[in-house]
């Protein structure tokens, strides 16, 4: 019952908001958004204490992988809503109900993805996340956001279409094998009887399809434009929650491929996409002149790390799951802090935005701290997760992968530091005055920063258990 409410409640409220005439106009029903966010997080939290068995014939169920993504999404949604309270006062959207409705529709779609055990349901949810976010990217309704929305829609739609084809290939691989069609536990249980040729094709198509949504290189081209032009809170939600859902899609097919003994085929492909994403991110981060585009390329980098850990296996799978959480939290943190810069100065460009420590002390501080977090410096959570992935490379007997990864991470650190420190420090332009930062605009990122910092020094027991179970399901081990 709880699972159905988690999936359906936000959608029902979204439909009500979109259809009831009382919600027309620019005003956003923020109280309603907050109520949905709190109810969702409460229900998701209760799943940690009292687990629930599958529902609707086993099509929906909570498992460690899904629970991780669901909890992350729910937390990021609540943070986004608190930020929206401050954001909407400064920049009201042209349509309040589109803003609130699309946000809640996204929450529903992401919950469906996280809870789906039927891989076609997972696809339906993933497509719905793409579509619910598109009007949010176009929120400002100017030329640049139009161009970004168009690129996002066309590229993601093609990606999602390829993923659908991959899902059909998987159904072909199942053929006459016993078990319910496309239901994950049955696929895993009978994995060795699946038709290997179809399974390989399904793996590749699902990886490329969901990889497009995740923003793995070379399918990442929509990402800098979309994250750069979308309102920052939307970019943060996309970079934190939506990409995690897409990663879950890839993790699901990896789960089946590993159970089928296709590891020697799947792992090199995952490692290849991971290293390529790191390399592409490094090339575009060095010399980048826009903060939000920089963060978009940083997202490409971290997506690369996620599939790299998955491909390395062993403790790498645990590292990836931990990194999923760290990256989700800190991408949202950075985009919200960047959003404060855009609200105050009208631009996220590095030229003309200097000395932010003097004009926006809290947000600039968050950006500088975040720089060290996203580049994997101790004591932040990313240091732990990236170190685990690095260890997996050495354990698996690939020291050269570890070396390449370290080199690229070092280049990325330098590239990011030049831009972020340049914006935060330096002498402010004459005429710029300190801006009062509203509490709503800094509350969310500060809370996220504290959580990421905590995960760097202490991982709570229940979380460690869930991550370990998820890693084992992906063919890995606990560190």
């Amino acid at each position, binding site marked *: 019952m709880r699972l159905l409410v988690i999936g359906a409640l936000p959608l029902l409220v979204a439909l009500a908001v979109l259809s009831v005439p009382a919600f027309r106009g620019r005003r956003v029903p923020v109280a309603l958004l907050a109520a949905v966010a709190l109810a969702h997080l409460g229900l998701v939290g209760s799943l940690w204490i009292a687990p629930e068995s599958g529902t609707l014939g086993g099509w929906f169920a909570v498992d460690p992988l899904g629970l991780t993504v669901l909890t992350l999404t729910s937390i990021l949604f609540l943070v986004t809503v608190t930020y929206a309270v401050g954001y909407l006062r400064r920049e009201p959207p042209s349509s309040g109900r589109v803003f609130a409705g699309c946000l809640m529709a996204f929450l529903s779609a992401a919950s469906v993805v996280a809870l789906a055990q039927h891989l076609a349901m997972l696809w339906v949810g993933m497509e719905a996340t*793409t579509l619910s976010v598109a009007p949010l990217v176009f929120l400002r309704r100017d*030329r640049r956001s139009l161009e970004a929305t168009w690129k996002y829609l066309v590229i993601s739609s093609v990606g999602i*279409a390829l993923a659908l084809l991959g899902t059909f290939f998987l159904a072909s691989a199942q053929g006459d094998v016993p078990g319910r069609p496309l239901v994950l536990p049955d696929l895993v249980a009978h994995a060795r009887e699946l038709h290997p040729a179809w399974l390989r094709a399904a793996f590749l198509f699902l990886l490329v399809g969901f990889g497009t949504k995740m923003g793995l290189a070379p399918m990442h081209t929509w990402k800098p*434009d979309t994250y750069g032009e979308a309102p920052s809170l939307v970019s943060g939600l996309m970079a934190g929650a939506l990409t995690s859902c897409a990663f879950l899609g890839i993790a699901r097919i990896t789960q089946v491929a590993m159970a089928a003994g296709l590891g020697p085929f799947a792992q090199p492909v995952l490692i290849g996409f991971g290293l390529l994403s790191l390399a592409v991110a490094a090339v575009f981060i060095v010399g980048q002149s826009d903060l939000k585009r920089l963060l978009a390329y940083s997202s490409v980098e971290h997506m690369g790390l996620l599939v790299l850990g998955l491909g390395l296996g062993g403790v790498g799978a645990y590292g990836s799951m931990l990194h999923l959480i760290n990256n989700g939290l800190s991408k949202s943190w950075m985009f919200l802090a960047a959003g404060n810069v855009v609200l105050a100065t009208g631009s996220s460009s590095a030229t003309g935005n200097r000395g932010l420590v003097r004009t926006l002390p809290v947000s600039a501080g968050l950006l500088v701290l975040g720089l060290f977090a996203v580049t994997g410096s101790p004591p932040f959570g990313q240091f732990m997760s990236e170190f685990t992935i690095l260890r997996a490379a050495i354990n698996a007997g690939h020291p050269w992968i570890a070396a390449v990864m370290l080199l690229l991470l070092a280049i990325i650190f330098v590239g990011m530091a030049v831009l972020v420190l340049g914006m935060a420090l330096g002498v402010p332009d004459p005429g710029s005055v300190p801006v009062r930062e509203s509490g709503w605009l800094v509350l969310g990122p500060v809370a996220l920063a504290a959580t990421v910092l905590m995960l760097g020094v202490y991982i709570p027991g229940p979380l460690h258990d869930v991550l370990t179970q998820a890693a084992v399901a992906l063919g890995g081990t606990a560190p």
Partner: protein
Amino acid sequence: MYSAAQLVLLFVVLSDLAVLGTTRLSSCIRGIAAQGLLLGLLPVLVAPQLSVHAVSLGVGTIVVKAIVLPWLLGRAIREAAVRREIEPLVGFIASQLLGVLAVALAFAIASRLPLPATTQPLLVPVSLATLMIGFIVLTTRRKALMQVIGYLILENGIYLFGLTQTESVPFLIELGVLLDVFVGVFIMGIVVFHINREFDSLDSTRLAELTD
């Protein structure tokens, strides 16, 4: 029933090639509508026996792919007042040749795929050909509206492949897929309309402000 299904699949390939060689956008939309109608007939024709499932899938397909989507696209070109695709990135003759190549390639690939013997023999090659032709339209045309049409053809190719799995993929899922396609094209239609208003043209190559 096999021969009727084969005839319909043949017409699907012809409608692919027709869209590839047509300059008038309204003719392309008619081509897409015809293809949607053909696709709606197929669930009934390839099913081993007549079932409620096959008929409702067919009806749903015809409503979405042959009536609603072409109507939406038609409205978009009327409001935007565009008539023709001018100067595609690859010429019409060249892209039709590419299309024929795609069909040949699709048959070559399909003959190597391990398929159950009960599958209607033309279904998979026509699906792959339609997929590839959709991709050609999507990547070589400059009008945003033609790219939407290319995407629809790509989706139709996937739909055809899905027909080999009608027994294992239940009704609800197919409904979800149709709905997603519908909403996707609906949103694309709105964006196309805005592109026209902002840029006075539906030329997607003008969308080039955002670069590194």
